[in-house]
């Protein structure tokens, strides 16, 4: 028997009992809808979390700094402590999955902008690495190699500045005060630094770019060429016991506690140590993996992706629970198909015997009933898919808007809480058809075994 004849005949048989077939298909539809929609909620949840994480910082960047020494630190951890110096940067750069490393110095200080005064958090970066580190200006430009006193400011830096004479917090924490960040563009900021000897030095900085709204963690910093920051660092450290001294060689004995700082080996003290370094990775997977490796190596390393891991774990649990609930209704639908097929075989006992006498082989009969069951599954799958898309749309319109507003303020765009990716569509159709086939297995085998003699005996 040819495949297309099989399909035509199976389809014909299916619609002899329209009501029953429709009800069975409906059962399958409900099963499919519950699986798809519940799955889509799990996927939507994960995607939404990812998007909200990405607003905070890049998933492809790890921030590495020297681990802190603390008194009473276990010896084996202390021995692992590493300096973040030139050599370390090139070591990290050579690790697989690393696209680039941008070492940075930070300096903080009071700055003036015309008649206003504010605290500046200055971060030095090699201008050529800004694009790699996913800096995006919303106005102006990023730094060039020739820039010396030009800087790029985060979107909320403007809110650090206050009119002279009025008291106020240096840095704004929480919702921004709402000044237009573009106000800062092309402005001069005058930063005054003081070193341990009490000497002062003035730097006049020119704002050539304002960062876009992405990566909230960068919004309060001002980015300057690394060479300028190195110079500032050297100035500040003149005459000072380097602040990082205790990082270099930790104090481990009681009697050293007072004199501990003097125990620093000269070579290490003079060595340049960066405040931190940004490591750009190839992908989120590498970010997670490299973060772990860097911590193993003795650095401090953190990234947005670290938090993603924990959240994803939670999401997976939610997905499994939702999927499980869907699976139950699918199981019920499967039993429905088996029931329908078994009933159909009871009704058609004589007919099956007749076609056996007329030359239908075992595989013809089995194929016929398997095809019928698979068709029920497929139809249920298609109908379920259509219903799922509608339901998903409704969920996104009503529940999504409410959740978006609840999480990110009234003007926030609606959250797509239910997401049906292509793979889920394909998977759902293949899955429902397979379920139909599995459900048809037992009835088809029964039909196959029926005795053809039944056709000849006239009861």
């Amino acid at each position: 028997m040819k495949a297309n004849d099989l399909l035509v005949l199976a389809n014909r048989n299916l619609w002899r009992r329209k009501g029953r077939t429709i009800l069975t298909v409906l059962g399958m539809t409900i099963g499919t809808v519950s699986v798809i929609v519940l799955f889509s909620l799990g996927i939507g949840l994960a995607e939404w979390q990812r998007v909200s994480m990405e607003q905070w910082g890049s998933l492809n960047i790890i921030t590495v700094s020297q681990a802190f020494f603390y008194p009473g630190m276990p010896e084996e951890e202390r021995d692992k402590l590493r300096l973040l110096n030139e050599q370390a940067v090139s070591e990290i750069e050579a690790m697989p999955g690393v696209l680039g490393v941008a070492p940075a110095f930070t300096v903080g200080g009071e700055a003036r902008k015309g008649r206003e005064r504010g605290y500046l958090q200055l971060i030095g970066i090699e201008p050529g690495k800004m694009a790699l580190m996913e800096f995006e200006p919303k106005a102006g430009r990023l730094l060039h190699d020739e820039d010396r006193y030009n800087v790029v400011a985060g979107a909320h830096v403007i809110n650090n500045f206050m009119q002279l004479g009025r008291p106020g917090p240096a840095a704004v924490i929480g919702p921004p005060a709402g000044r237009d960040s573009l106000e800062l563009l092309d402005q001069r900021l005058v930063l005054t630094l003081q070193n341990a000897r009490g000497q002062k030095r003035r730097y006049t900085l020119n704002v050539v770019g304002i960062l876009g709204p992405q990566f909230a963690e960068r919004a309060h910093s001002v980015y300057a060429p690394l060479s300028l920051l190195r110079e500032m660092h050297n100035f500040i450290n003149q005459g000072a016991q380097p602040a990082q001294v205790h990082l270099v060689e930790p104090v481990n004995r009681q009697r050293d506690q007072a004199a501990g700082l003097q125990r620093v080996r000269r070579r290490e003290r003079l060595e340049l140590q960066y405040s931190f370094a940004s490591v750009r990775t190839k992908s989120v997977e590498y970010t997670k993996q490299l973060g772990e490796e860097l911590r193993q190596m003795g650095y401090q390393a953190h990234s947005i992706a670290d938090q993603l891991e924990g959240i994803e774990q939670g999401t997976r649990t939610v997905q499994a629970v939702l999927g499980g609930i869907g699976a139950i209704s699918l199981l019920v639908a499967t039993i429905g198909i088996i029931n329908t097929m078994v009933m159909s075989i009871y009704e058609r006992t004589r007919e099956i015997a007749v076609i056996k006498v007329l030359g239908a082989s075992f595989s013809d009969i089995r194929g016929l009933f398997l095809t019928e069951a698979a068709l029920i599954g497929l139809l249920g799958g298609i109908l379920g898919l259509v219903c799922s898309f509608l339901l998903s749309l409704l969920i996104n319109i009503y529940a999504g808007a409410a959740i978006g507003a609840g999480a990110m303020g009234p003007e926030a765009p609606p959250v797509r809480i239910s997401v049906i990716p292509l793979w889920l569509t394909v998977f759902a159709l293949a899955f429902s058809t397979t379920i139909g086939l599995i459900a048809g297995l037992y009835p088809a085998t029964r039909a196959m075994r029926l005795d053809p003699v039944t056709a000849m005996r006239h009861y």
Partner: protein
Amino acid sequence: MAILALRDIVKKYRMGDSIVTALDHLSITVEDGEFVTVSGTSGCGKTTLLNIAAGLERPTKGEVRFRNVALNKLKEKDLVLFRRKFMGFVFQGYNLLPALTALENVALPLVFAGIARKERLARAMQALELVGLADRCRHKPMEMSGGQQQRVSIARALVNRPKIIFADEPTGNLDTRTSAEIVAHLKEAAKRDRQTVVLVTHDSNIAGIADRIIYMSDGRLVDE
């Protein structure tokens, strides 16, 4: 030459604790092209005989030779091939598929034989013409009389151009005149293509047109 030879066939059925002997050391030979009728009281084993001769059932003892092949030793898979190629069946209850039209019903054996749609519909149409029902080809079985349904089922038995046709009381549900007509159709077709017919009937009129009449009683031959 004998197309069918049953030798010393015994068929026993288990009915709960007791054993029923449906065929009791029965031997028959049917010649190629012969039109044979089988008569006998109800329950004497006629249907059982037909089933065993067609390879639908296996004898408890004895040998069935069809064109010199021992059917009782063949596997189910090969028996199906034999049925498709060499055998046609007419049942007492017509046994047409209610979902299919007359034409589709006639073409059904060719579907299982894997013959392409166009060819099998053409052949089915020819067979319907042979029984005088070409104009009813689009009708469903429910829309036809008993006699017409049985003519469709005869067309179905003829469609694969079998060597032998087994008919089990094909006129059992029909009036005398229709019965005579139907059997005439069958005989005419069979004679033209030199097909062998084994036909079970109670009706002595019908038995009358046979080349040979076999009488059975209690699973044995009583007379020829």
